[in-house]
């Protein structure tokens, strides 16, 4: 049976309830999504760009969906404490797919930025929302179609023309429930011309023994000469599945950094679809995956140079251990007439055991003559001579390997343009490789430790 059937039935059976708890703009897009899904065969595992992801299997379980918007009994401020030290952020919380009001209200936000519930945004600023919602993402993508069919809320961030927001915005997505649950959320990020904003989005799962599926679609519009940093950090559990589809449209002269960081996860597929619409724009697309046990991480990227004189710098790195599986498939597409394109793609991986697997597919498709492009991939083991050298200095083998794995990730972390986050990531990655726990409780203690260190 097609795994999509249950979601179509769910929608048809509870349409009124679902729509009653959402916004008109979101509702208006559902029928289109339904038509796509009704005729859709999910891509089979092993098919083009789905070498390691089995969408059918990820969507098949009977997850609960909170269509009635039953409030979750959780005090976000009490359970969540994972601030980045030395980084003051305005915090926006999603508990499962419910927007949770927090201490960070709109009133505290700097002038020129609107951030909060997408549902409310669609009501308060229908023109802006309608201009971008459902317009950037491709409805024929199964993740986007399913998200469009079922999403009732999410987060919207709108930075008006010319406003440069210093204070980073942080989105925290918490999964918390006693029974298997699917969270369907949507992100809409609009950075108008000459505006600037930095966003950190963190995924956390509170219950390690419960199955979760997080479905998200992100649409981003970055206007002319605007700047956007978007860091998407996953720290979930082995029983969490995540399907994320990010769509970015970049106008001329814009500068975007997207960084997908997977520290802890279960089964994850992240897609990054980006397109340049105007000249002299830059994109840094970075990604990092630390996979062990039986975790799976699949990153797919499609970067389209539709116009000339734009610059892409893409770097994905993985460390895969135990029986984990990593996959990277990246396409840089240079369209006819995109003269002066510069695009570089690199994927480098360390496979630590005989049973771990890494799949890598770097791709360039170039339909223009006047370009500078390169791509490359390398997968290997830690350098034995480096390990031995360190051991002769008394550094135990495990520590030596730890230091080398950290060093391997250093350039991805150093690409981070939020100074507080960069330091914190170095520490998180160090702890990750040292096998020192994960999840929010450890994260909280880590923050406390650091604050003590700073004081002393």
């Amino acid at each position, binding site marked *: 049976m097609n795994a999509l059937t249950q979601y179509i039935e769910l929608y048809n059976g509870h349409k009124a309830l679902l729509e009653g708890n959402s916004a008109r703009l979101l509702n208006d897009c559902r029928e289109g999504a339904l038509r796509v899904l009704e005729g859709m065969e999910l891509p089979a595992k092993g098919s083009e760009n789905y070498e390691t992801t089995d969408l059918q299997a990820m969507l098949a379980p009977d997850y609960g969906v909170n269509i009635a918007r039953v409030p979750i009994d959780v005090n976000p401020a009490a359970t969540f404490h994972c601030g980045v030290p030395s980084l003051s952020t305005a915090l926006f919380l999603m508990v499962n797919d419910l927007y949770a009001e927090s201490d960070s209200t709109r009133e505290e936000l700097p002038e020129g930025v609107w951030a909060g519930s997408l549902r409310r945004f669609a009501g308060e600023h229908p023109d802006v929302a309608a201009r971008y919602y459902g317009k950037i993402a491709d409805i024929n993508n199964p993740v986007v179609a399913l998200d469009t069919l079922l999403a009732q809320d999410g987060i919207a961030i709108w930075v008006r023309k010319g406003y440069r927001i210093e204070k980073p915005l942080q989105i925290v997505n918490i999964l918390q429930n006693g029974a298997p649950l699917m969270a369907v959320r949507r992100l809409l990020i609009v950075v108008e011309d000459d505006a600037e904003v930095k966003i950190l989005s963190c995924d956390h799962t509170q219950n390690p023994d419960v199955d979760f599926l997080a479905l998200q679609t992100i649409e981003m519009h970055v206007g002319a000469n605007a700047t956007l940093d978007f860091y998407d950090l996953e720290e979930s559990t082995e029983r969490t599945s995540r399907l994320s589809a990010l769509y970015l449209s970049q106008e001329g002269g814009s500068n975007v950094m997207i960084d997908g960081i997977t520290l802890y996860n279960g089964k994850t597929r992240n897609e990054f679809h980006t397109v340049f619409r105007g000249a002299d724009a830059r994109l840094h697309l970075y990604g990092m995956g630390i996979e062990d046990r039986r975790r799976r991480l699949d990153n797919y990227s499609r970067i389209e140079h539709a116009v000339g004189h734009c610059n892409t710098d893409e770097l994905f790195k993985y460390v895969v251990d135990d029986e984990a599986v990593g996959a990277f498939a990246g396409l840089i597409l240079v369209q006819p007439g995109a003269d002066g394109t510069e695009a570089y793609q690199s994927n480098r991986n360390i496979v630590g055991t005989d049973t771990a697997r890494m799949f890598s597919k770097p791709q360039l498709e170039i339909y223009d003559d006047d370009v500078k492009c390169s791509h490359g991939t390398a997968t290997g083991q830690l350098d034995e001579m480096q390990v031995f*050298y360190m*051991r*002769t200095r008394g550094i135990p083998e495990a520590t030596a390997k730890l230091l080398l794995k950290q060093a391997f990730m250093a350039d991805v972390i150093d690409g981070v343009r939020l100074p507080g986050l960069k330091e914190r990531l170095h520490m998180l990655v160090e702890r990750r490789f040292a096998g020192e726990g994960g999840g929010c409780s450890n994260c909280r203690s880590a923050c406390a430790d650091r604050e003590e260190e700073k004081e002393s």
Partner: protein
Amino acid sequence: MLKVKNLHAQINGKEILKGIDLEVRPGEVHAIMGPNGSGKSTLSMVLAGNPAYEVTGGSAEFYGKDLLAMPPEIRSHEGVFLGFQYPVEIPGVSMVNFMRAAVNAKREYFGEPAMSATDFLKLMREKRAIVELDNKLASRSVNEGFSGGEKKRNEIFQMAVLEPKLSILDETDSGLDIDALRIVAEGVNKLKSDRNATIVITHYQRLLDYIKPDFVHILYKGRIVMTGGPELALELEERGYDWIKQQVDSEDK
């Protein structure tokens, strides 16, 4: 201190060491010389515990303990140091983190608490002076972008920090100009005492003008075929290795 008896070792199935006998006592400096491919570097790798080499026979005792049974990091804690012919570059690992990990691993082995940041920086400063190592290198990745001379000085700096009982210096003179050679040799001499010992592996007699050996051993075809005093090195400089090769090869027949 070190007693090596009839040591055999191979790499990738090829036997390189074919019965090494060597005894080193505290306060001594031993020079091991020999033509290319005689097994000099293999001997240093085997004594330091490189897992790529397989010991197929014989024994090596270090202060009565079975050296060959110890992993490389324990050999280091117990006091064996190898100065590499080709110091390894480790991009992304800073010299400071590298040395802190090394110092604290040794302290942990002996049940001592980790060194405080202040004491550690003081130690680094003090030991850097011995080989005139530039402070700037401390913030760089291990050996990355170091010149040949800096790499070798960095080896002696690490030796100074770890204070080994036995230092094995593998071709420390290779790739050094005369000034760098003098600095490295002076560093070694400053660290010398009647409680530690040095094995200097070298191609040329030149280094031995600076580091005076008590014994000179000639390694050929995986065995020590001749042992003498400093005068043997001078004789080699004059006559080359051919007369030794001929002598050994004729005995083998």
